[in-house]
């Protein structure tokens, strides 16, 4: 009994709760635990999963990024349009990464150097970038000329689609960066106390600019994969992505007040979001009720985690 309590309330408590929920769902929801469905589920969270990696850094350093959805759409468009125009897919991908990075860089510079509130800055760039995507495409999806572009998303390695591998790779890379590098620790320190970090020799401005730039580039990766999956660049893609990604992070224990983040938590958060959606559709829950259920799942997930951590006594922070 006591050791059960210990496990639940421990560091990995969220993981344990999640594993429990997973088992329950596997037993009671028909067709859930099939290879096909698992792969479908993982593919459905690729965009959220990939963007969460850097959003975690952004939130952990006490920043905020609402522009991710627009950046995903915009860089996807760029990838397609430049590939079409130049006839070279690698060229298109490079252009997308550069554009994504540029959006992030602008966010970072405006926020860190001009000291404009991150929420407002990224709310502004969210609209500006979406506007660019719409202007560039005249509001319509842009088809892909060279079908080998689709292969990015369709190809499989060991029967698992490439986008899933890329997501896993990014989870590992950013998990490593967070826990094992000076960059990661400095990110958390900035979130804990930016002024103290500055005085401790952390170049806070540069860190913030880097985090946003990385975020932009990672959005481009997500945008490329998305364009490849939906076989076109869509100016309206990924609207509302920002809130899903932020929810996944917060579900995974990332603190909006900065200073607290863990990759496993974020992965669990992403999976919870994906599973909720997947199971509701498997159970054929009506669209309007899905809203309500989704809301309650969010609430219950954080509530459970809160109970856990307050029982574990996180103190007065």
């Amino acid at each position, binding site marked *: 009994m006591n050791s059960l309590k210990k496990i639940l309330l421990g560091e990995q408590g969220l993981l344990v709760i999640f594993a429990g929920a997973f088992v329950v769902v596997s037993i009671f929801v028909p067709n859930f635990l099939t290879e096909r469905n698992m792969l479908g589920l993982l593919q459905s969270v690729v965009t959220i999963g990939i963007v969460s990696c850097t959003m975690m850094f952004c939130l952990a350093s006490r920043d905020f990024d609402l522009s991710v959805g627009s950046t995903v759409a915009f860089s996807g468009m760029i990838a397609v349009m430049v590939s079409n125009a130049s006839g070279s897919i690698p060229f298109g991908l490079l252009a997308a990464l550069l554009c994504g990075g540029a959006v992030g860089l602008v966010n970072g510079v405006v926020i860190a150097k001009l000291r404009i509130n991150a929420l407002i800055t990224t709310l502004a760039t969210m609209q500006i970038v979406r506007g660019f995507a719409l202007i560039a495409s005249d509001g319509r999806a842009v088809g892909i000329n060279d079908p080998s572009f689709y292969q990015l998303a369709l190809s499989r390695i060991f029967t698992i689609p490439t986008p899933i591998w890329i997501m896993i790779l990014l989870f590992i890379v950013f998990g490593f960066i967070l826990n094992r590098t000076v960059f990661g620790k400095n990110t958390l320190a900035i979130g804990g106390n930016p002024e103290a970090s500055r005085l401790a020799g952390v170049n806070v401005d540069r860190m913030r600019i880097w985090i946003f730039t990385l975020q932009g580039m990672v959005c481009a990766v997500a945008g490329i994969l998305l364009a490849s999956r939906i076989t076109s660049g869509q100016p309206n893609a990924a609207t509302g992505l920002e809130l899903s990604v932020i929810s996944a992070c917060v579900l995974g224990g990332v603190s909006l007040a900065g200073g607290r983040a863990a990759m496993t938590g974020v992965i669990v958060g992403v999976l919870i979001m994906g599973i909720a959606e997947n199971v509701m559709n498997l159970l054929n829950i009506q669209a*309007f009720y899905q809203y309500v259920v989704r809301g309650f799942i969010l609430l219950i997930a954080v509530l459970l985690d809160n109970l856990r951590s307050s029982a574990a006594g996180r103190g007065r922070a």
Partner: protein
Amino acid sequence: ADVKIGFVVKQPEEPWFQDEWKFADQAAKEKGFTLVKIGAQDGEKVQSAIDNLGAQGAQGFIICVPDVKLGPGIVAKAAANDLKLMTVDDRLVGADGNPLEDVPHMGISATKIGETVGQAIIDEIKKRDWDMKEVGAIRVSYDQLPTAVDRVEGAISVLKAAGFPAENIHDAPQAKTDTEAALNAATTVLNKHANVKYWVAFGLNDEAVLGAVRASESVGIPAENVIGVGIGGAESAINEFKKPSATGFFGTVIISPKRHGYETALNMYEWIADGKEPPKLTLTAGSLALRGDYETVRKDLGIE
């Protein structure tokens, strides 16, 4: 075996799709198959929805896509999951912009329906004997939605052909597709042209046109000086017709969710169960409904 059919729509909140689903359910009940209803607002959600249907062992699905350019991806995904595919409302196109003829489709042409709206407006202008030079037109626009562009452009082409001066057509871009956004955008147009006496309005759907009509009321233009013609014919429009006195909302082009929902579901069922392939293309028409006759029009279309 048990037949399971998916019905994926782009905007489950819209009454139109609620109706389509309702009629598809009716078919499911009659024929005894399972209908799985999924909302998918963007390309990514569509992909997951198809995977999800595959995973639960459906044999086919009907879809109204968020963007017709998603075509090739959807066809590929459906094939990968071994699902029969049929589209409703909006027809898929390939990378070159031409329709994917192989995918059975039942729908309406956005341009056609726009033209019906335009024709209704022109007819009424003539009937009221207005001088077209003195009439302003509000184009309530939502240009990021390709169907919306096609609809209003359809209406405009008819207006112009009938001699409506192009410079009298004013753009009122909605920031969102709800009535309030249309109302605010239209108000600005009306105030900018405060001297114009007569107004006509058209847009993406009933909600958009209602916004323009509300705007005309709020600036004090009498109802008989306004002709608004919407698209859809669901509750928003009916509520308007039920009002004790006539408003500037002159009519709406009703499209029948019954055919779209019921027939597509039935076609798909027969395709799966009996191997009977549906026709490649079925186009339905919209019918203009006015305050006086909307009940009969609805009845004729099989909706109540």
